[in-house]
C-alpha cells in the first residue's frame, strides 16, 4: 500500500464523497434519513466516532500489531460507538429511540474503517484529524442532503422537532409515526424511496462532478464510469 494509494483514497467532500461517490456506510444514511433532525443527530454521532477513533489510532499506531490491526480498529470504533450509544441514551432518549439499531451500527461504517486503515494508521494525529474532518464533512453533507429532501417531500417540513436535538428533551415531543405517514407523500418515508432518492442524488452528484471535471480538464476523472461501453456501428463494415 503506497502513499499514492492513500492520497487517492483519502476522502473529501466533493470528488471523493464517501457516500455519494464511494458508496460507503450507506445503511445508516438510508435508514435514518426520514427526517432532518434524525439525520443531524446521526451525523453528529458519526462525526464523534470518526474523529475520536482516528485520533486514537494515529496516536497508538506504533503500538498496533500490523497483522491483527483490523481487529484493533474494529474494537476501537466499537468502544467509541458504545460511548455514543450510552451518551445518547442518557441525553437524547427520544432521538435514540428513533434511530434504533442504527446507532450501534456506526461501528460497522465501512468509511470509518477505511479511513483508519488508509489515513490514520499512516499519519500523525494532526494530519489524520484534518482528514477525518474532511471525511465527516462529506458524510454529513450527504446525510443532510438526503434527509432534508426526504423530510421535505414526505412532510413538507424542514427540521421539524428540532428541539429534540437539545440535550434532555422531553419524550412528549417525539414524532409519532402515524402522524408522519398521513402527511404529504408518505411513500418517501419508506425504504425503497430512500434507495431511489439516493440513486438520483448519486446521479446528480455524478453529473455535477463531470461538469466540474470538464471545466478543469487537468483534474483526474473520479466519476464512476460505465463498466463497459457499447460498441455499435462496427457492424456496418464488411466482414
Amino acid at each position, binding site marked *: 500500500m503506497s502513499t499514492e494509494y492513500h492520497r487517492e483514497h483519502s476522502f473529501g467532500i466533493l470528488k471523493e464523497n464517501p457516500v455519494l461517490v464511494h458508496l460507503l456506510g450507506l445503511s445508516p444514511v438510508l435508514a435514518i434519513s426520514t427526517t432532518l433532525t434524525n439525520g443531524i443527530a446521526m451525523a453528529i454521532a458519526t462525526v464523534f466516532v470518526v474523529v475520536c477513533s482516528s485520533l486514537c489510532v494515529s496516536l497508538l499506531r506504533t503500538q498496533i500489531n500490523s497483522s491483527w490491526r483490523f481487529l484493533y480498529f474494529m474494537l476501537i470504533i466499537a468502544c467509541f460507538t458504545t460511548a455514543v450509544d450510552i451518551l445518547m441514551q442518557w441525553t437524547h432518549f427520544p432521538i435514540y429511540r428513533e434511530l434504533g439499531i442504527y446507532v450501534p451500527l456506526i461501528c460497522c461504517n465501512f468509511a470509518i474503517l477505511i479511513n483508519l486503515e488508509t489515513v490514520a494508521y499512516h499519519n500523525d494525529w494532526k494530519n489524520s484529524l484534518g482528514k477525518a474532518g474532511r471525511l465527516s464533512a462529506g458524510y454529513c453533507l450527504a446525510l443532510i442532503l438526503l434527509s432534508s429532501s426526504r423530510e421535505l417531500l414526505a412532510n413538507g417540513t424542514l427540521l421539524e422537532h428540532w428541539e429534540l436535538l437539545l440535550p434532555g428533551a422531553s419524550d412528549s415531543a417525539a414524532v409519532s409515526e402515524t402522524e408522519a405517514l398521513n402527511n404529504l407523500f408518505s411513500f418517501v418515508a419508506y425504504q425503497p424511496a430512500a434507495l431511489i432518492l439516493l440513486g438520483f442524488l448519486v446521479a446528480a452528484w455524478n453529473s455535477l462532478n463531470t461538469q466540474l471535471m470538464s471545466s478543469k480538464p487537468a483534474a483526474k476523472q473520479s466519476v464512476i464510469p460505465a463498466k463497459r461501453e457499447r460498441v*455499435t456501428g*462496427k457492424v456496418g463494415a464488411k466482414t
Partner: protein
Amino acid sequence: MRLFRNMFANSKLRKMAGVQSIAHSTPGGITPHLHKSRSLRSKIMAIPIPPHLLIPLQQQQGTASAACVKAGDRVLKYQKIADATDSTSLDIYAPSSGVVSMIQNHTTINPAEKEQLCIFIDTDGKDEELAEIDAIEWQTLTREELLPVIRNAGICGMGGAGFPLPKKMETSSNREIHTLIVNAAECEPFITADQALIRERSEAVIQGAEILQYAINAKHCVIAIERSKGDAIAALSKSISHSSVEIVILDDKYPAGGERQVIQAVSGKELQANKLPADAGIHLQNVGSVYAVYRAVAESKPCISRITTLTGEALQTPKNFEALIGTPVSFLFDLCGIDKKNHAKTVVGGSLMGIELMDTSAPVMQSSNCLIAGSLAEFPDTIPEQPCIRCGFCAEACPAGLLPQQLLSYSRSEDAQQLEDHGLFDCIECGACSYVCPSKIPLVQYYRNSKEQLALSQEVFDTSKGWQARFQDHQYRIKKLKDEAEPRTAIKPANIPSAEEKPQGTFSKDQAILDVAAAVSRVKARRKNVIASSESPAKPIQADGEAET
C-alpha cells in the same frame, strides 16, 4: 394444423417404394417462404459454350491448385489444366476446348470478395474432347482401384460450403463407415438445383450413391430428402426398386440440410461438437457431388460442370442450367433474359446463407448452386436495426441451441469470455435468428464480427501465453542453476576467507599443515564437483521437460 398435414403427407409417402422412415426431429428451425416453384417449371438445360471461361484455381476450402498450362496453350475438353498440390486441393480440367489466353487474378465468388488466380480460356466453340475414354465397369474394380478415380475427378462438395471430396474420402477411408447419407435436403429458399437433378436423373444419382457406398465400404446408403419435394421423391422411389438405397423423409424446415441436422434426422443421434461425421461412422455427401462421382466413374468424365439454379424476379425465364465451371455469371443471366432495371442485388447461394456478388463477371464455381438476380421486392433494403426486446424468437429458431440475444449483448460489449461460454463458435451462421428477428438486427453479422475479433485476440493471447511459458521456463532454469551453484558457492566462502586470513595471522607450523590439508581437500572437493557437474547436464533438460508438462 401443421401436425395433421404432416401426418397425412407421411401416410401417403410411406406407401411409396423405398421410403424407409420418417426422420427424427431436430431442434430449432424456421419455415421461410421458399420461392422455389418458378425455377422448377422447366427442365434442366445445357448452356451454349460461352466465348470466355475463367476457371478459378481455388474453388473449394483448402489450398489452391497449381496450373499446369500456360498462356497460349491450346487445351481440349477434359484436359487437365491444374494439378492438386495436396489433399485439400483439386485437379482441374478444361470445361471446353480453346486457347489459354492468360492466367491472372479476377474477382470470384467468395465472402471476402477477394481476387483469385484464374485460368482464362478463349473457347473455340468446337468443344473437342481429349480422347474418347471408354466407360469403366465399376463393379469390376476393387476398392483400391476405385478410390483414385474418384479422387482425381476434381470434385468438391456441391452443397455450397465446397469441402474437397478427396479430403473427405480420405478421412472416411481411415475410419469404419457404416452409413452413407446422400444429402438431398435443399432447405434454403430459391435453390432447386438438387431437386431438378433428382427429378430428371434419379437413376444416375442412385448409381452414384452405390458407387460411393462401395468405395467407402458402407453397409447402408440413405438418401435424405424433404417432404415437400414430392416429384423428386417419386422419381427416386421409381428408380430405387432394384437397389438397396433407402429414402428418409425430412421435415420441411430450414436448416434441415445442415450436416449435423441431417445426421441427427437420419440416425436420431446428435453428433458431438468436436467430432466429424466420420467419427460416428457416417459419410455425408451432397447429391450434386454424388452425381459428379457417377459421371467420373461410370462415364469416365471429370467434373467440368454443375447444375445451377438461375432465379429471381429480375430474370424472365428462371430455370436450372447445367453450367460449365468458369462460365461468367453475367453470361448465364443474359441467357435467362435479365431485366436490368429490376435487378437490385445478385446473390450466390440461397437467400439465407448466400453471398452477395457485386461483380457479375465472376465465374460459376463448383459450389455455386444458385444464382439469384433479385428485385428490390425480393431483397428490400435493410431496415435500420431496432432495439432487441428479448422476444426469444431467435432462441427458438436456433438449430444449435444458442441464446442469440445474449450473444448479441455480449458481442456488443465485446465480452470474449461470455461469448465463448455462450457457444459463439457453435454458431453455424445459418441466419435463422436474423430471419425471425422482429427488430431486424443483423445478428449473424454481429457474430461473424465477434468471431473474427476473437480469432485475432486468440492469436495475440497465444503469443503472449507463449512468452509467459517461456519466461516461466527461464525462471525455472535459473532456479535450477542456482540450486546447483549453491554447493559451490557454499564451499567457496569457507575456503576463500581462510586464504585471505593468511597474511594477517602469524605463521605457525600447525597452521601450515592445516593449510596444506585444506588445500588438498579443496582440490578433492573440486574434482568431485567437476565429476558431479559432468554427470548432471542431462538433468536440467529433464527438469525443463517436466516444467513444460
